[in-house]
């Protein structure tokens, strides 16, 4: 298959549309399954994720990951459908990029292979979505126009909907929302979007004063007396015979 690939780290929807205008024959940029691209079809392109990782693996783990990367699970139509859904769930029109810039389709493909229990729900979910779009709008999901795609999503994006006929779609959309958000927030874009501050050497010296004040909390003196004085952390510990730290 010809997988739509962009090497851009933070492609946004405007870039994609621009690319589409400049290269009208680049069919792989279009979510289309054999039909001629219509003016309303959604363009999708995503950052491709690495297929080689290097981090403290055993030989057995390396071998398994190599096997997973060698396997292709989703058909092109399925992958494009996932891409469109991811893009709806976390759109690209944001300063921190969206699902496609975070390479979501590649991530979902990998997780489906790594956790095989996802294979059926994802594949069957796509089939349900297509049959529902066909029934409702006369074409598969990625071939109906954007308003029609969103109309379908509005029906299946909320788990409190009681309509039995929609339950397979709701379960699938919930799974895709979970995968999209977890796949996005575990990238650099997601870290930036969240404002994540950890995972770096530092000296923990308690909750910042302003934060304590905001929440009406404080450290009591008795507790603080048991806590580390970070100015003395590098002085080797010694105790008296009564178990008191004296350095």
């Amino acid at each position, binding site marked *: 298959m010809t997988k739509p690939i962009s090497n851009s780290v933070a492609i946004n929807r405007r870039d994609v549309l621009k690319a589409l205008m400049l290269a009208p024959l680049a069919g792989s940029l279009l979510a289309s399954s054999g039909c001629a691209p219509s003016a309303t079809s959604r363009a999708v392109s995503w950052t491709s994720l690495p297929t080689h990782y290097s981090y403290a693996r055993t030989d057995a783990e390396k071998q398994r990951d190599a096997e997973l990367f060698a396997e292709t699970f989703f058909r092109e139509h399925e992958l494009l459908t996932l891409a469109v859904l991811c893009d709806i769930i976390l759109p690209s029109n944001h300063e921190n990029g969206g699902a496609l810039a975070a390479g979501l389709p590649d991530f979902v493909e990998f997780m489906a292979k790594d956790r095989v229990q996802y294979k059926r729900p994802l594949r069957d979910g796509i089939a349900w979505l297509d049959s529902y779009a066909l029934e409702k709008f006369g074409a598969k999901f990625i071939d109906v126009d954007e308003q029609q795609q969103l109309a379908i999503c509005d029906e299946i994006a909320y788990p409190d909907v009681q309509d039995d006929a929609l339950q397979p779609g709701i379960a699938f959309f919930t799974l895709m929302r*979970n995968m999209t958000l977890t796949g996005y927030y575990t990238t650099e874009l997601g870290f930036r979007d969240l404002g994540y*501050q*950890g995972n770096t050497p530092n000296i923990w010296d308690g909750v910042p004063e302003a934060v304590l004040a905001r929440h009406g909390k404080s450290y009591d003196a008795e507790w603080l007396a048991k806590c580390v004085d970070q100015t003395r952390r590098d002085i080797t510990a010694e105790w008296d015979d009564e178990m008191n730290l004296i350095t």
Partner: protein
Amino acid sequence: MAEQEYDIIIVGSGAGGGMATYQLANAGLKVALVEAGGYYDPAADENRTQLRNPWESPRRGASTRRRPFGDYNACIGGWDLDGEPYTQKGDTEFMWWRGRMLGGRTNHWGRISLRFGPLDFKRKDVDGLGDNWPIGYEDVKPYYDKVDKLIGVFGSNEGLYNDPDGFFLPAPKPRLHELFYIDGARKLNVPVYPARKSMLTKRINDERGVCYYCGQCSRACSIHADFSSSTALIYPALKGGQVDLYTNSMVREVTTDESGKATGVSYINKEDKKEYQLKGRIVILAASACSSARILLNSKSDHHESGLGNSSGHVGRYLHDSTGASRAAFLPELMDRDIYNEDGVGGMHVYTPWWLENSTLDFPRGYHLEIGGGMGMPSYGFGFAANQYNDYLGERVGGYGNGLRDDIRRFYGARLSIACRGESVPQFDNYCELDPEVVDEWGIPVLRFNYQWTDYEIDQAKHMQESMEALLEASGGILLGEKPGANRKYGLAKPGEIIHEVGTTRMGLDPKTSVTNQFGQLHDASNVFVVDAGTFVSQADKNPTWTILALSWRASDYIIEQMKQQNI
């Protein structure tokens, strides 16, 4: 090598084996340390998972069969090892974790380092159940003191009778969600104290680093600022030149002579798949409670027909794990919180030890509470059910679009959780034995487990759930999920799931009802010792590692003394 006779052969390099290696090698004895897994040093960059970002893993840190605690967890091992099956009797659901690396399970444990107290060694005196240990707190206290100083543990002296004081390093300050827990617990008159864990919040020597608060002890520390057997005990011991380390070496059995005394061990070299022998004057088993029992049961001879040390039929008996249950809550007061680095040390900074009197309750034995929550690093699973808390705010759950980003930020870190770890009552009828039919990939008979929780543990789990609900709500939390009921044993973890299994070679005065004496020395063979948690008569509601270390040091002193006196 085959011709050399060692003074000491130690099987297993976890807490017990590491301490024995350190003590006996430093005493000038020639030691062979035999480990079923490979060499491992977290300071080597090829082993580093610490400080990696989630996108450096294709599965973003998700767990796998080979890494049940996540892709970045340091422990090579798990409940399901390639080529090393185990079996269950009846409807037993025992989960057997094995580490396969230098340092064993000390590479990923929670570093919760609690001394057993005076009551913990004499539980039969308290409630009439089970048995007393043949030793008391006063026997072990000097060794706890020495372990504290050698290895380092932070905590606070609170003067609690059954949670004794120690030589502590200073504690890290509580995080914000922990302050909510402290206030909640105090409202209910439940005590709460700084946690007690073996991370170096202050320098203890020039060899090991001081904690830089990345919160990733489970990934193994590249500056050796937390305790693992390899970093704190085995590397220093290796420097002395007294230790030969045999890695990827799977011990099949302890070999014995006509008199029944051990002559050494036979092991499979996993690299060439061949079997080798080591000769030694003394064999010390530290392979973990069930692995050591398995080796003993596989060490059959004319003199030890039912397995070495098993004339009592007690090897494998009284297997018991900690009880466990957990619950989580949404903390609305922490919505839209300020984001800063609160990684701290790996896991909790505060905890609640057992605080009630069992005489007023309908179950024996206690449990402690471990506190979780806060602004962790996103990894696989982050963002699942992203806005489920909307349910509690009268807003709609689900949806799509950029509004989800606001939900993610709004609820980030607004969570408080509690995990209980409790003491079960050891049962003769909970045991591991050799499966008569199944062998592992080296042809060694495997263990079969027979284990059922009793009403004691189930009633305790029920109480855990009630305590957790009360504490989470008192802390301002809205309980998440359903409270597990009787049909789910009140959320009681499966046996083995908490990975505190002990008791399979318990110590005692009577050779008919115990496997070793108070020093871990087999009643049936004076030159064979067990220094893992197999010797525990009862588990206490304390994580076992600190007691394994203390007892292994104590056994090592005894071995040195007995060798001097030429008794062994």
